[in-house]
């Protein structure tokens, strides 16, 4: 019996849900960014699993994951820069105190 794709898809779903929970409930914005990274990693795992065990196995899934990783790196760099600038201005990185646009 060859290996199936179900375990990988289930693991991806579990990691995505944990990341989503973290992104919804964490207060520190650095941790929200980290949870989003976890969700992106779950997506990458699905893409790589389909590139080997999918209906049409091809290396294209791995290419998608590579581009995904590059976009995630850019996102983290800009996010951390925004957080540092915000900390310099307001002295906080808590997501619930970022309400300057409210009034």
């Amino acid at each position, binding site marked *: 019996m060859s290996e199936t794709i179900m375990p990988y898809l289930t693991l991806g779903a579990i990691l995505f849900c944990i990341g989503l929970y973290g992104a919804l*409930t964490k207060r*520190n914005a650095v*941790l929200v960014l980290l949870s989003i990274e*976890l969700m992106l990693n779950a997506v990458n795992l699905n893409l790589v699993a389909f590139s080997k065990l999918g209906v049409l196995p091809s290396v294209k899934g791995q290419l998608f994951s590579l581009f995904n990783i590059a976009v995630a790196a850019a996102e983290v760099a800009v996010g*951390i820069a925004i957080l540092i600038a915000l*900390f310099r201005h307001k002295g906080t990185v808590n997501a619930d105190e970022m309400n300057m646009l409210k009034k």
Partner: protein
Amino acid sequence: MLDNLAAFFSNGANIVFFVFALFAIGGAIFMISFTKVVHMVVSAAVTFLSLAGLYVLLNAEFLAAAQVLIYAGAITILMIFGIMMTRHQDEDKPSVGRSHQVLALIGVLCLFGILFYAVQHAMFPPAEATAAEDNTLEIGKRIFHDHVIPFELISLLLTVAFVGAVAIAKREEE
């Protein structure tokens, strides 16, 4: 049931998958439940590393190396820098109310139920086994023959993003 389990664990690749999946989920759960922020980042690094192991299991060696270099190396270190430069003694107190947490948990569990149901009921015809070739060579050929324009665009995106990050984080002149 027990026979299935025995058959599952008689295969070496399945055991490796089980161990890596356990580490990935454990790292993610600990990332959610630790109270010190630095500990959370370290356990996220465990998750990223075990995902790299899973990529090796899926014959994606180049991607595993990239995962270790970029995620476990660069992104984790960048997160730790971000924490050190802001406020690192802080413990992450859940200021969001109990009801908020419970609502988020219910929503996430519903999403997981839907995903799990869809995954279990999807029919994937078994893939024909492809011969293992040189993974890195194949990716290089694909990138530089078929996908040159996306590759150049992603390099442009990275350059612009990093220049923008430097410009945002730079101390402003008085």
